[in-house]
């Protein structure tokens, strides 16, 4: 009997509550084809197509044979897929006297990019850390000079640097180019690291000092482990920047050290013989592949690093 009564009251209660819920309740339903959605997705799709079409043409062309390309349908997919142009671009294409394709340029680019990225990030992060956390005499001046450095056009400095490198006896060598890349990466990277380190809580730094940690201990044991996102951002900026560099590569090195970009240019712009569009396309994609992979692999960390710097800075 008692149970019956309880059930009844419970039933009545639920009836009452469902009765009061007859109006709008919970999430508002949204139609899929609303004006908002059409404009939003329409714009995004158009933008995506606009950016992807050139890539599509490149990939498709690089997989075609030359007779097929001459037919002129640049948007049509290849009738007969061939990887011959890719092999040729990598290993056989001629630049001047050398006919070993882009591979030589690739190794040069790796030999230029890896040390440049490591050295520039190492120095810039220490610079940024010192500027953010340690007060020293002339710190403001140093920082101003550095920031101004970020705004001076490269072209102005090319000839003086050529002279400096020549006097140092490293003009035309890989180490010369590495030094140039390191120097030119310094202003923006230092700024990046300074702002990031300044956004970390100051009390952390004070606590470490009370604990007896000095300049290097704080840098290596406290700051570095907290700064992975900003290191990733710096790496992406430097890898893509140095890999894509053409100007410094062509000015400061000798032909045997030309980076991939310069070599790509030489292959594509070689005047003798037929223009091999498929080989050119393949060579271009090969050259752009490294930055592309870097973006894909580190995309998430990149966004996180940028966001971390932005929110707290």
């Amino acid at each position, binding site marked *: 009997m008692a149970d019956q009564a309880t059930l009844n009251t419970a039933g009545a209660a639920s009836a009452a509550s469902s009765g009061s819920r007859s109006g709008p309740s919970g999430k508002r339903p949204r139609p899929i084809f609303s004006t908002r959605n059409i404009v939003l997705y329409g714009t995004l799709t158009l933008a995506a197509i606009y950016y992807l079409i050139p890539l599509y043409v490149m990939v498709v062309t690089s997989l075609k044979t030359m007779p097929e390309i001459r037919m002129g349908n640049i948007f049509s997919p290849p009738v007969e897929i061939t990887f011959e142009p890719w092999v040729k671009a990598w290993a056989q294409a001629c630049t001047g006297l050398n006919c070993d394709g882009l591979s030589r340029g690739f190794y040069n680019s790796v030999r230029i990019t890896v040390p440049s990225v490591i050295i520039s990030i190492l120095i810039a992060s220490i610079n940024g850390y010192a500027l953010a956390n340690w007060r020293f005499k002339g710190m403001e001046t140093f920082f101003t000079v550095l920031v101004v450095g970020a705004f001076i056009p490269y072209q102005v400095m090319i000839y003086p640097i050529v002279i400096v490198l020549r006097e140092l006896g490293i003009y035309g060598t890989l180490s010369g180019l590495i030094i140039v890349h390191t120097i030119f990466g310094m202003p923006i990277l230092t700024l990046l690291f300074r702002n990031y380190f300044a956004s970390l*809580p100051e*009390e952390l730094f004070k*606590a470490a000092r*009370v*604990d*007896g940690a000095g300049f290097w201990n704080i840098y290596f044991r*406290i700051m570095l482990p907290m700064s992975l996102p900003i290191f990733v951002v710096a790496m992406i900026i430097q890898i893509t920047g140095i890999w894509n560099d053409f100007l410094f590569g062509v000015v400061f090195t000798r032909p045997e050290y030309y980076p991939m970009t310069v070599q790509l240019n030489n292959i594509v712009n070689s005047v003798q013989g037929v223009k091999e569009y498929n080989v050119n396309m393949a060579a271009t994609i090969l050259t752009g592949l490294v930055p592309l992979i870097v973006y894909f692999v580190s995309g998430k960390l990149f966004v996180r690093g940028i966001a971390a710097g932005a929110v707290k800075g």
Partner: protein
Amino acid sequence: MNSSVSVKDLTLKFGAVTVLDKLNLDIKDGEFLVLLGSSGCGKSTLLNCIAGLLEPTDGQIFIKDRNVTWEEPKDRGIGMVFQSYALYPQMTVEKNLSFGLRIAGMDKAEIDKRVARASEILQIGPLLQRKPAALSGGQRQRVAIGRALVRDVDVFLFDEPLSNLDAKLRSELRVEIKRLHQNLKNTMIYVTHDQIEALTLADRIAIMRGGLIQQLDDPMTIYNEPKNLYVAGFIGSPAMNFFKGEITTADGRPAFATNGVTFMLDGYKAKGPLRPGTKAILGLRPEHISVDGPETADTHQAVVEIEEPMGADNLIWLKHAGQSMSVRIGGSRRYNPGAQVKLAYDMSVASLFDAESELRI
């Protein structure tokens, strides 16, 4: 008693701004000193100077009778606890505690011993392998205290350690810090803007304003005999009631007249003679006024405006002498707005300030 920390003529300027101005302070061995003041009064700056994290423009700092003015923080024999805890996020609690010792190159067995002792005192044993992100605010602050503890220092510095915690945890940890001080008997310097923390923890409180110490005394003296108007208004919640008026005599006895109301000053412990005609400010704490007590010749009549029951006690706001005035009474006594009450005053704990110099008379 030896002095443990002593600050001599300490001046600190940031450019044109003088944050600390020729400040002198002597802290006894084993004393719990609280630096109290509103934000921007220089209390944290002073603490940072003592810690060696800020370089003074002028003056000296002694710790254990040793001049440490030019020494690094680690060589001063201090441990510091920060408001934001400042735990190293990538290290476990254990690594956090032992960081300073590992830097100093202490041997493993001694480090383990000290970490074990600190974690036992603070009851953070089960947390040792966790990262700070996996700890609650109270646990984090306990670890931060532990980090100072393992260093086995003479002086503990606390920079608003409880300000980031919620009210309940704050009162819990407050008791724990007091217990810690009773057990360890170290010198502790504690910066806060919370007067409850100051009154409950301190052996002595230094109330600061504009880079100067306004009053340095034990909590009861600060509370009952504030040296000037600022201290009187700063300490106490709800705040002291102030009346502007002048000293007179009534029936041949010293009295204070304001807005047509006369307060008899019988029992007031004046520092000097009370000269009639002096412009003055009378300060009465809400808890030093009794309501509807035994009738005497000096009782006043007033009307209740608002009642604020707070559980343990009840705060009533009255209209008296042309201004609003609060009185604290027992929680069980209730008054409706509009009720007539009779007021009597305990002048032995009242405060009287010169209206011009704002100093205690």
